C-alpha cells in the first residue's frame, strides 16, 4: 500500500516538475569573468514579440472616469494645497510637538476610528474581525486611557480598517465613477457615499463624546486632519511621472478591490 502511495506521490511530483516550464532549476553557469548571466535563467517567448506589457497596461488604464477633466483639476488643486498649506502645517506640527504626543494623538483618533471599523466588520458578518476590533476598543479605551496608548497592537491585535465603502463593495456594489475629492484625494462614487455614512454613524454613536465636542470646537477636526496627513505617507509628485494621475487612479481602484476582497 505504502509503495503505491509513494509511486503516486513520485508521479505527482514529476508532473509538477514537468509543468514548471521555467529554467529556474537549471544550474548557474559562471563564466570566466565570474558573471552569472541571470537572464539565462529565464524562459523567453521565442519571437521576443509578445505584447503582454502593453495589453496589461492598456486594460489597466480603462477605469471609468467620466469626470476626468474636473478630477484632474481637483488633483492639481490638492497637489498645490498639499505643498503650500497642508505639508507646511504638518511640518510645523511635527516641530512643536514631541513624538510621544503625536503618537498619542494618532492613537486617540485611531481608537475613535475603530468604532466604524467595528460597525462595518459586523455589517460584513466578519466574526473574527469584529471580535478582534471589539477587543481593541475595550483594551485601548481602558488600559490605553481613552485610546492615547495602543496596547492592543502590542498584544497582537493589529488595526484592521473597514469602512462603509468596503461594506458596500462586499455586498457587490460596484465602485462607480472615479472621483477626486478636494483635500481628501482619490475616491469613487461608492466610497464617497460610504464616507458620508461613516461620518454620520460616528456622529450618532458619539463615542467618548468626541463628536459632540468637535461640533463646538472645529479645532478638533483640524487636529484630526493634520494627524491624518501626518500618518499618510503619500506625497504628490512621489511617483515622479507626468502620468501620476493615471497611476494613482489605477492604484486606488486596485487597492480598494484588494481591501474589499480581504
Amino acid at each position, binding site marked *: 500500500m505504502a509503495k503505491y502511495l509513494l509511486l503516486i506521490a513520485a508521479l505527482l511530483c514529476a508532473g509538477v516538475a514537468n509543468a514548471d*516550464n521555467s529554467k529556474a532549476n537549471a544550474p548557474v553557469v559562471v563564466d570566466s569573468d565570474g558573471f552569472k548571466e*541571470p537572464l539565462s535563467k529565464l524562459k523567453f517567448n521565442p519571437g521576443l514579440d509578445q505584447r503582454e506589457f502593453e495589453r*496589461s497596461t492598456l486594460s489597466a488604464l480603462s477605469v471609468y472616469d467620466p469626470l*476626468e477633466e474636473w478630477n484632474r483639476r481637483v488633483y492639481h488643486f490638492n497637489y498645490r494645497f498639499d505643498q503650500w498649506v497642508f505639508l507646511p502645517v504638518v511640518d510645523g506640527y511635527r516641530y512643536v510637538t514631541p513624538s510621544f504626543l503625536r503618537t498619542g494623538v494618532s492613537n486617540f483618533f485611531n481608537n475613535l476610528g475603530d468604532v466604524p471599523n467595528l460597525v462595518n466588520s459586523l455589517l460584513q458578518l466578519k466574526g473574527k474581525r469584529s471580535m478582534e476590533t471589539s477587543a481593541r476598543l475595550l483594551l485601548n479605551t481602558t488600559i490605553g486611557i481613552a485610546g492615547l496608548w495602543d496596547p492592543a497592537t502590542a498584544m497582537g491585535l493589529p488595526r484592521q480598517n473597514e469602512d462603509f465603502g468596503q461594506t458596500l463593495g462586499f455586498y457587490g456594489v460596484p465602485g462607480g465613477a472615479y472621483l477626486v475629492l478636494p483635500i481628501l484625494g482619490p475616491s469613487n462614487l461608492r466610497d464617497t457615499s460610504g464616507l458620508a455614512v461613516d461620518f454620520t454613524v460616528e456622529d450618532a454613536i458619539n463615542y467618548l463624546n468626541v463628536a459632540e465636542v468637535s461640533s463646538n470646537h472645529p479645532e478638533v477636526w483640524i487636529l484630526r486632519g493634520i494627524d491624518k496627513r501626518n500618518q499618510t505617507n503619500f506625497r504628490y509628485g512621489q511617483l*515622479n*511621472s*507626468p502620468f501620476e494621475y493615471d497611476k494613482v487612479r489605477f492604484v486606488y481602484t486596485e487597492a480598494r478591490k484588494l481591501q474589499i*476582497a*480581504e
Partner: protein
Amino acid sequence: MLRFLRFAALFGGLILSASALAVDIDAASYGYPLTNPFEATIATTPPDLRPTLPLDEDINQKDRSLTLRPEREFELPDNFWAVKKLTYRIATQDKPAPLIFLIAGTGARYDSSLNEYLKKLYYQAGYHVVQLSSPTSFDFMSAASRFATPGVSKEDAEDMYRVMQAVRAQNPKLPVTDYYLTGYSLGALDAAFVAHLDETRRSFNFKKVLLLNPPVNLYTSITNLDKLVQTEVKGINSSTTFYELVLNKLTRYFQQKGYIDLNDALLYDFQQSKQHLTNEQMAMLIGTSFRFSAADIAFTSDLINRRGLITPPKFPITEGTSLTPFLRRALQCDFDCYITEQVIPMWRARTDGGSLLQLVDQVSLYALKDYLHDSPKIAVMHNADDVILGPGDLGFLRKTFGDRLTVYPLGGHCGNLNYRVNSDAMLEFFRG
C-alpha cells in the same frame, strides 16, 4: 639579454596583474540570504540584515528648489507646474563635514527609496548629504536638462554638474571640508562622467567617487531591461492580464494572512509564502517598472522638444487635459525605441552624425576607460548576478578598475546595497 628582458617584462606583468586583481567576495562567507537575482532586485535585503539607520525626524534636512531653466516656465504646459523648478533634498550636519552627492538611478527622483537609504547611511556617518534626481527623471528633464533628451552621458553629466554648482551656490554658508560623489545604477554611470568632467572644471575636486552597480555598456543594459517583459509567464491567458495575475496573488496572500500589513518585510515575506512569484513573473515585474520609466522619458522628451512623436506639437494642454491617450502611445515605446527615435536623431544633428555603435561607445563606461583606469579615487561595487550586465562587462570592469572593483556574488540589481556587509564597505571606502 633580450630573453632576460622578456622574462622581466613577463614577471613584472604577472606581479602587476596580481596586485590589481578585483576583490571577489566569497559566496559562502558573504551570507546574503537571497540567491535569486530577481528576488533580490525586488525585495532587497530582509529588514533584520539591514544596518540600523536614523529616523527621518532625527535628520536635519529640507527640500529646496532651483530655477535652472527659466524659459521652461513658458514652454511647458500648465500641468507641469510642479516640475518647473528642480527640487533636491539636503541634509546638513551642524559642524564642518564632508559633503556627499547622491545621484538616483533610471527615472528616479531625489527621494527614491535607495537615495533615502544612502542619505541615512552617510548622514549617520557624519556627512552632509545632497540627494539629486537622475537626469532621466521627469523633474530633472523638465527643470534642469538643456536638451531634455537624456541618454548621452556626457551631456547629462554637464547638466548634472550645473545642478551641483547651483546647489553649492544656494548653500553658501554650509561648512564643507571635502566633496564626495556616489550614485547607483544609471546614477553611477552619471557619477563617472561627472567625476571626469570635474577633472577639467575643478569646481569640487571630488576626493572619492563610488559607483554602485553601474551599467557598463548602456545598450546591453537597456536591451536586457527591454527584454524582461518578453518572458513567458505562466498563468497569463486571454482573460487574465499580468497585473491581474499579480494582484490576485497579492489578494490571496493577504487573505491567508488575515489582514493587510504594508511594511518593509512585505515583499520578502510574500516571496516566502505559497503565492510567491516565479522567476519569469518577477522578471516581468522588473521589466514593467522600467517600461513605465521609458514611457515617462519618451513622453517628456518628446513634449519638451515638440517632436510630435507622441504629443502633437501644438496640442493645447491644460491642467484638466487627459494625458491618458498620450500614456497609451508612450507606453508602446521601450528604451530601444526611445534611443532610436529621439536620442540618435538629436545626437546626430548636434554632433555631425555617427552610428549607433559610436553612440554606445560614447555613452558607456568605455568612453572613460583610460581615465577610470588611472584614477585611484574611483571605485566600483557590482554584483555577479546583476541583470543589467551582459557577458564581458565584468571582464571590462576587472581590467579597468583592478583592485578598486568589488564583486559580490549575489544581490541582483542593487538588491544588496542595504545589506550590512555592503553598507559597511561603502562607508569604509569613503572613510579610508
